[in-house]
């Protein structure tokens, strides 16, 4: 898989090593083509939505709806993109969202109000990320296995806390954030959080040493170690970051659904991985793009939205979703290789 990546291992969408003009230009063009092809897919989807359901689809409320639905999984995907870029995988994201959301909505936590819920959601996410990171970076466990174990135990713990019951949130301050009155200039608060996380994520990956180290570790961990990067510490931070994103996402989900349930975050791991891969992040590591991941999330959410508006049933939705994943990746491959 990694063979077709050109020699300079640094492959994020905008940054490139200075002093190598040809590959620098090639990289930039290729990255742009990748992003452009994703925008193309999105444009086609918008066209389909606009033609089939002009009144319902091309509507401010629908735009707000699509972006709101994308926020929760979007934040998770930003964290996932970092982990995958470093050559790892985090299968536990859905379970961490579930655990954070139920821990933050217990009767005891809700007594502490808005702050208590936010604090707990974020801290539980970070805590799970920490355990993942320690097991992988210092315990020498394979990411697949360590996060799979976290998936199982976090879901189990979530079930133990809720006892299978739906925990309804009664803290007004939290609920209000999900209402239309909380929109600023027509932008829902959830979407703002999503945007901020995306921008910060983009800056970290593309404009900081931390981002370059992440790419380096993913490209060739041994080379990165020899170049003086503390690979293990880097890995620890990355899973911590993914956990943090899950905690934030859990808080958004609590606002959105007004409750905590142990079934929350069902199959988020697959959605986040799929969005990142469609976006152009290499599953083998060494290349990652936040822009692409976010576009991947938006493509999925838009598809779901168009299907629901056209009253297509789940069976058709699933078949089409699979076909579109394949199509999107093929289109990307073609456009990327012809330039």
């Amino acid at each position, binding site marked *: 898989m990694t063979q077709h990546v050109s020699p300079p291992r640094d492959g994020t969408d905008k940054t490139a090593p200075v002093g190598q003009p040809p590959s620098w230009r090639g990289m930039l063009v290729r990255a742009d083509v990748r992003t452009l092809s994703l925008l193309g897919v999105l444009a086609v989807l918008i066209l389909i939505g606009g033609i089939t*359901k002009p*009144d*319902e689809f091309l*509507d401010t*409320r*629908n735009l707000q*709806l699509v972006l*709101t*639905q994308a926020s929760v999984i979007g934040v998770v995907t930003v964290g996932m993109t970092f982990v995958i870029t470093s050559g790892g995988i985090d299968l536990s994201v859905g379970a961490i969202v579930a655990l954070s959301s139920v*821990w933050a909505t*217990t*009767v*005891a*936590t809700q007594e*502490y109000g808005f702050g*208590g819920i936010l604090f*707990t959601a974020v*801290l*539980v996410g*970070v*805590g799970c990320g*920490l*355990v993942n990171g*320690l097991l992988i970076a*210092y*315990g020498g466990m394979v990411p697949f296995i360590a996060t799979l174990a976290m998936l199982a135990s976090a879901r189990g713990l979530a*079930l133990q*806390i*809720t*006892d*299978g*019951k*739906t*925990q*309804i949130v009664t803290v007004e301050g939290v609920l209000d954030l*999900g*209402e*239309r009155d909380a929109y600023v200039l027509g932008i829902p608060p959830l979407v703002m959080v999503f945007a901020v996380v995306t921008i910060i994520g983009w800056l970290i990956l593309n404009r900081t040493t931390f981002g370059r180290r992440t790419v380096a570790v993913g490209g060739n961990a041994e080379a990165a170690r020899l170049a003086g990067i503390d690979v*293990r510490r880097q890995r*620890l931070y990355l899973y911590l970051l993914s956990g943090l994103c899950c905690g934030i996402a859990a808080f958004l*989900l609590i606002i*959105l*659904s*007004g*409750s905590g*349930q*142990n*079934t*929350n*975050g*069902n199959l988020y791991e697959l959605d986040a991985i799929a969005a990142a891969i469609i976006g152009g992040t290499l599953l083998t590591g060494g290349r990652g793009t936040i822009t692409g991941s976010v576009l991947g999330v938006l493509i999925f959410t838009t598809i*779901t*939205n168009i299907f*629901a*508006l*056209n*009253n297509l*049933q*789940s*069976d058709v939705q699933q078949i089409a979703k699979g076909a579109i994943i394949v199509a999107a990746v093929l289109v990307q491959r073609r456009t990327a290789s012809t330039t």
Partner: protein
Amino acid sequence: MPELTNRFTSRRGLLFGTAAVSAGALLAGCTSNESDDEPAANDQPAAEDKPGKEVTIGFAGPQADHGWLNAINDNAKSRAKKYSDVTLEITEGSNDTAQQIGQIETLINKKVDVLVVLPADGKALTQVGLKAMRAGIPVVNLDRIFNTPQAYRCWIGGDNYGMGLNAGHYIGEKLKGKANARVIELAGLDNLELTKQRTQGFDDALKNYPNIKKVARQAAEFTVESGQAKMAQLLQAQSKFDALWNHDDDQGVGALRAIEQAGRDDFLMVGGAGALSAFQAIKQDNGVLKATVLYPPTMAASAIDLARALGQGKGVSGMAEFEIPASLTLYSAVVDKDNVDTYMSTGFK
């Protein structure tokens, strides 16, 4: 070299571990869900209250990972406690077929008098039902039915088709006389046969009302999260409709949240299953939710009644037969503002 790094690692790991543990301890206080509510249970008097022959009932159910299944366990336990002549051997719930088979085999080996089984998967557990029956232990099959009647002495369960039927009739009567009425359906998990049955019943009922047309149907996944997501899309797709049937009150929590967020109140909503939060909303009568169709978890209490009667060789009181029936399909009653108080105590969380 590796040994050296390992030692170094473990010390650092210890440091981080301690940090994690203390953060955990900080949070641990927040896991409490203590409240003074009683578990959902039925106060209906038991079949025959005079103590009779001692009966040991083995109970095996799936993992109680959502409200309704949790209520099933509570109902079975509290019912058994009411009888001084009943001992309940309850297994830890499991969704794993192999594990549940093992648990039931253990109960057979313990020679319990009667078995009550709510299989994780009815078809997959047929064999162990047969095994129990052959060993002379009568089986009360709860809700998810075995492949063959040979595997149980008595089946008791809910009526999914009837749920849809009653929801459809309730909505039909409410919208009577309204020309070109539009109805939408928020279904449960489409992978399950029971969802198809509920939808079938709903459609069949609506056929009786030519003025009503079902304009949209989307399937959620019985979870709050999916209920919110699918309902938000449905509301965007249908700017005007008169009634909504939601298959499940758990996902209904999410659906109601979406309705609130969209600021809509121009239709009536009927739920399904019978959750406490739904009953409370119906009683308050200040939102769109006006009724819910039962899929009563009290069936587990009745299953204990039946198992006790089997163990003591009795029939069902109030019926002429000497034996208990081979099959009991429960009625999916519609609970609305008028009768909600009767059912309030059976609501599950």
